[in-house]
């Protein structure tokens, strides 16, 4: 099968991809070819939300994007959501940390992306908006109580 070569704009940088199979998902290319393992490979059918990224500013399951078709799009992964300084966290990430909304951590990057997407659009969301926003993110450890609490903390700190 013919190899495909293209370049993706990920977290503000052009990243060449060479020798890929044309059917590879964006999730596969991020993790296996571009050394960006933040987006997690859970269900690979859009059900779990663990691979959520922003494509041209739109919250998207990276597993459902054909990588070779994302040429020309601006892709932001969880690695690129925060300040450039190594080790610094966003308000949302800090809130998850402080509220104990992390157990095994598998779903966390997807939840962080979903909550950033929500708060960028609605800085003061209703409780229903919050539940709706994370309805596509499955957590198999803690349940969602602390995640919802973390979002409350993030909203409060963002408003300051």
């Amino acid at each position, binding site marked *: 099968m013919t190899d*495909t070569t293209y370049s993706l704009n990920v977290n503000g940088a052009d990243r060449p991809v060479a020798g890929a199979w*044309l059917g590879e998902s964006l999730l596969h290319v991020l993790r296996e070819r571009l050394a960006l393992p933040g987006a997690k490979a859970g269900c690979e059918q859009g*059900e779990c939300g663990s691979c959520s990224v922003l494509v041209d500013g739109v919250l998207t399951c990276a597993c459902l994007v054909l990588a070779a*078709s994302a040429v020309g799009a601006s892709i932001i992964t969880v690695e690129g959501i925060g300040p450039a300084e190594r080790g610094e966290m966003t308000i949302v990430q800090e809130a998850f940390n402080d509220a104990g909304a992390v157990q095994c951590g598998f779903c966390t990057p997807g939840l962080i992306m979903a909550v950033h997407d929500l708060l960028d659009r609605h800085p003061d969301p209703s409780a229903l908006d919050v539940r709706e926003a994370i309805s596509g993110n499955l957590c198999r450890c803690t349940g969602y109580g602390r995640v919802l609490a973390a979002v409350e903390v993030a909203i409060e700190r963002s408003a300051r």
Partner: protein
Amino acid sequence: MDVSVPRTLDEALAALADRPDAMVLAGGTDVMVGVNAGRQTPTAVVALRAVEELRTWSVDGDRLRLGAGLTYADLLAPDLAAMVPALAQAARTVGSPPIRNAGTVGGNLATASPAGDTLPVLLALDAELDLASVEGRRTVALRSFLTGPKRTQLRTGELIVAARVPATRPHQEYRKVGVRNAMVIAVASVAVVVDADVGVVACAMGSVGPTPLRAPRAEEWVAGRIDWGTGVPDAGVAAEFGRLVAEESRPIDDHRSTAAYRRHAVEVLARRALESTLAGVARAEAA
């Protein structure tokens, strides 16, 4: 080129004519699931995500033209939802926010799943589909476009360009049963569209047949049992309507549910959808 990302419809049609083997990719929410699982191994892809003209809608007289590239999230926009509220209701039940950001009307039509959420609404609205290829354009009624589970009249090299529906039929409703609110494929669904001006009720069902189905006998029966001046049905009409709709369903047992449950669900959904659409007619007549 093995993967093309055209920017115009003409470029997309040319790319498809050039590579008849190409897999057409819209939002990817169905297609990429198959690719990831190894069920599909494309040798070429035409991705439609950059074809902006497919992602538009317009009103021409009393007809609404919905571009095939409109996403479920697009259908939730207030101005569109005001014209086709049942389509917005259907879109609202699809997946989760990231799925609604990706999945498209055209993709739902081309996948032609018996459970496709927009399909019962479009079928109850007697949607017409605009199809195009380098050979030319044609229009096909959705009713004949859907030929079986995941089978359509779409030809090789052809793309769905738009669906056309009435823009002036506000009394419509989509209802769906699934195992939870988010990320659920319909176990059974019903769309009811009422045109009070001419005294017509249209009803379509999803997930209870090889394709979404209309319920013509129930539609005809009910139309004569409503006072169209007030929108009030005769006593017991909604319940009997539900029973008649369920009789016209053709459900099967599968991994998602049983035929018996689906038949029951369709009966309840049809009754409730008729009651609430007629209540809307009554409110409008009283105003």
